């Protein structure tokens, strides 16, 4: 009659016991205290004295130094010729009738403001008029590539150019050849030389680069983070004809991961008593689960039939993070996309490969929808490219990484 009451009482008692004792037993390890370093304070005078005695930096980040060896006969002009206030005018000549361009100017160019489409052709370029004899007075333009170009790739970690013939790989390793006379016991395997792609740590502007033309480096004077800016006006849609997309090719046969068959639930105990008691127990369990579990993840509880294993280590998470970041290329993304943080959800198969059609954007922050679309495209490419061969994740913990939410935060990737 009062069995339910007793069971409920016991369950609540257990819960209270858990709240009192469980926190002590299962409490997470307190974070290790941060490493501290003893420092001493110096006065401004001491600092100035120290700075003045230090060797001078080669580059002044505030202002570019004087150009060394500037030709005497070619001092920079004091003012711009175009928009500067003109000098006192010469005596005004008599009005001259507007003359037609000399030597029959070329066929007038069509107005650029033409109706839509490409149907309007720009005017044909006329035969180039005879150039005025310039001869040796003109100097050939500076040769491109006179100075070595900076690395095209900007990566978190700068990397030297890979040796010739080396395969791209995050890991740098030397090539080995099979021993011409291998020992019988342990023949060496041939190993291909690998090296990470050449990369620089940050963008090098032309003002910073040193070359024959740019003798003095001029580092950016300020490089704060961009603030919110006005919305970009949307370009007027162009009149075009849509082309029907082709019939999508039959999807390649992909090996489907074999999901472990769920085993039939085993009764925990033989309960001789009645169904109302079972219901009460289940309710208590559900209540307990609900209280402990994170409400945000209630819908994403791992499938209990999948291998759970111990928690993912920080190294395993870092490995995944590093693998994705190697393919997260923002080089062709808009500035808007580079200030948009997107969160992407992806489902992995058991081999660590992302399931292509499972990749979806959960949300974005800091930008417009257009920027978020481009940012999501870049994130999706990163996941699919670097996951093509499967991410290096422990299979025994599959339940923990089957569903992954990746937040792509481009804060540190903005223009520097």
């Amino acid at each position, binding site marked *: 009659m009062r069995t339910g009451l007793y069971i409920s009482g016991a369950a609540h008692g257990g819960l209270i016991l858990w709240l009192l004792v469980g926190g002590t037993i299962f409490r997470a390890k307190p974070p290790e205290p941060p490493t501290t370093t003893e420092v001493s304070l110096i006065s401004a005078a001491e600092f100035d004295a120290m700075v003045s005695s230090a060797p001078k930096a080669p580059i002044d980040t505030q202002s570019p130094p004087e*150009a060394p060896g500037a030709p005497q006969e070619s001092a920079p002009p004091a003012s711009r010729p175009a928009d500067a206030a003109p000098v006192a005018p010469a005596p005004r000549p008599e009005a001259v009738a507007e003359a037609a361009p000399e030597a029959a100017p070329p066929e007038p160019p069509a107005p650029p403001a033409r109706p839509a489409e490409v149907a309007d052709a720009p005017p044909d370029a006329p035969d180039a008029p005879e150039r005025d004899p310039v001869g040796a007075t003109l100097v050939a333009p500076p040769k491109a590539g006179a100075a070595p170009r900076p690395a095209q790739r900007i990566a978190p970690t700068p990397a030297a150019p890979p040796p010739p013939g080396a395969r791209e790989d995050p890991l740098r390793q030397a090539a080995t050849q099979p021993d011409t006379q291998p020992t019988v016991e342990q023949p060496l395997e041939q190993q291909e030389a690998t090296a990470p792609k050449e990369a620089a740590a940050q963008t090098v502007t032309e003002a910073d680069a040193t070359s024959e033309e740019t003798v003095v480096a001029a580092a950016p004077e300020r490089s704060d983070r961009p603030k919110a800016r006005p919305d970009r006006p949307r370009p007027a849609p162009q009149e075009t004809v849509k082309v029907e997309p082709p019939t999508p090719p039959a999807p390649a046969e992909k090996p489907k991961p074999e999901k472990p068959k769920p085993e039939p639930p085993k009764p925990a105990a033989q309960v001789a008593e009645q169904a109302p008691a079972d219901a009460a127990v289940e309710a208590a369990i559900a209540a307990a689960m609900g209280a402990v579990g994170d409400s945000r993840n209630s819908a994403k509880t791992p499938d209990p039939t999948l291998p759970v294993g111990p928690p993912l280590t920080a190294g395993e998470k870092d490995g995944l993070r590093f693998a994705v970041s190697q393919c997260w290329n923002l080089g062709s993304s808009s500035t808007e996309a580079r200030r948009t943080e997107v969160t992407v959800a992806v489902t992995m198969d058991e081999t660590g490969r992302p399931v292509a059609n499972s990749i979806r954007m959960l949300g974005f922050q800091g930008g417009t929808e257009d920027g978020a679309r481009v940012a999501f495209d870049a994130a999706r490419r990163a996941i699919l490219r670097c996951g093509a061969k499967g991410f290096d994740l422990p299979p025994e913990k599959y339940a923990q990484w089957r569903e992954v939410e990746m937040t792509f935060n481009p804060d540190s990737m903005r223009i520097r």
Partner: protein
Amino acid sequence: MKLNRLLSNAVMGAALGLAALFAADTSARAQSGPLRIEITEGVIEPLPIAVPLFLADSPAAGQLAEQITGVLMADLTGTGLFREIPRSAHISAISSFDAPVRYPDWKAINAQALVVGSVTMTGSDNISVKFRLFDVFSDAPLGEGLQFAGPASSWRRMAHKVADAVYSRITGEGGYFDSRIVFVSESGPKNDRAKRLAVMDYDGANVQYLTDSRSIVLAPRFSPDGSQILYTSYESGFPRIQVLDVGSVTRRALQEQSGVMTFAPRFGPDGRTVIFSLEQGGNTDIYRMDVAGGGAVRLTSSPAIDTAPSFSPDGRQIVFESDRSGTQQIYVMPSGGGEPQRISFGRGRYGTPVWSPRGDYIAFTKQNQGRFHIGVMRTDGSEERLLTASFLDEGPTWAPNGRVLMFTRETSGAQGVPALYSVDISGRNLKRVPTPDAASDPAWSPLLR
């Protein structure tokens, strides 16, 4: 008996409760949801793109297809944001425009984007160019296919239009390939240089001359719709602003007023208003007037030299340079006039400010310690960033998408000549724009329609 049952129930309940709690706690500790990671570091490198030769339905179309594919690829790789995967590396051959794409073949060569196109003769002298863009690693088209039709002679514009569409879809920025540049073409020795106005495609093709070389011309500027050009001419001996109609190549003086010099003109965003500098009695101020004529309204009144005005895209503000503080600096004021606010505070002198068509940056020329720089700053003067450094860089002009700048770079010495260069606002991809002669004072048109 009853006590036993009671005890049994209590024990069972407690056991079940503890088991449930333990299970819940274990699960929570293991992971209570999807694995969450944050990626904060990536790479910045050109996107590998494959552009197989566009298909053609005839030998004539085949030649055009080759030219269009070449211009398309030059446009894309010229931005520094894309890297071409050479055709020799392609595994798949595109046999039909509508044939399904074999994504694994393109993934194998690390092509992240693929452009498939075709050129069809639609008449004696008309062609149709269509293309599709694919996101290879997503196994899906990126946007819908597009088709352009027009005379065969306009094949370059069609190639630029395709490039604009591809660029826009991948980067999220507007394109700028189907645009033109007006500039001052210079020839002859430095002390007797002939100057004339010329227009060309953004990439230096199709150069056409608009004026003769009998008088000096300076600082041409396109109207917002690209149909007119303002420039300063010394034809009368005085600097005088001229308005040139691009379609008919006819021109007229903006203002006929004896004894004054007018220069540094620029259109307002509505295309009907012009702001310019006017010198009278030794004082230079900024004025505003209707391009159709009428009286000029004075916007600044200081004994200093106020010049090089430029409207904000919304037409509410004007940025200009002035030496009212003792050195050349950049100021912003309301478009109707009013108290200017100085926004440049760095070392050196600042000039030729130009408001970005997107409204987010102001480009400028900076002179400091004997070097010239092209730079950008936010419209409040913050985040100043110098993009170039040389003996003489000046006069920046914005691409229609507000992400690329073109300017004049002059080499030093008696033999020095000016040339046009472009650079993106990150300071990368600096390159020379080919011109038949020396060139200066570029001004970028809006996107053609």
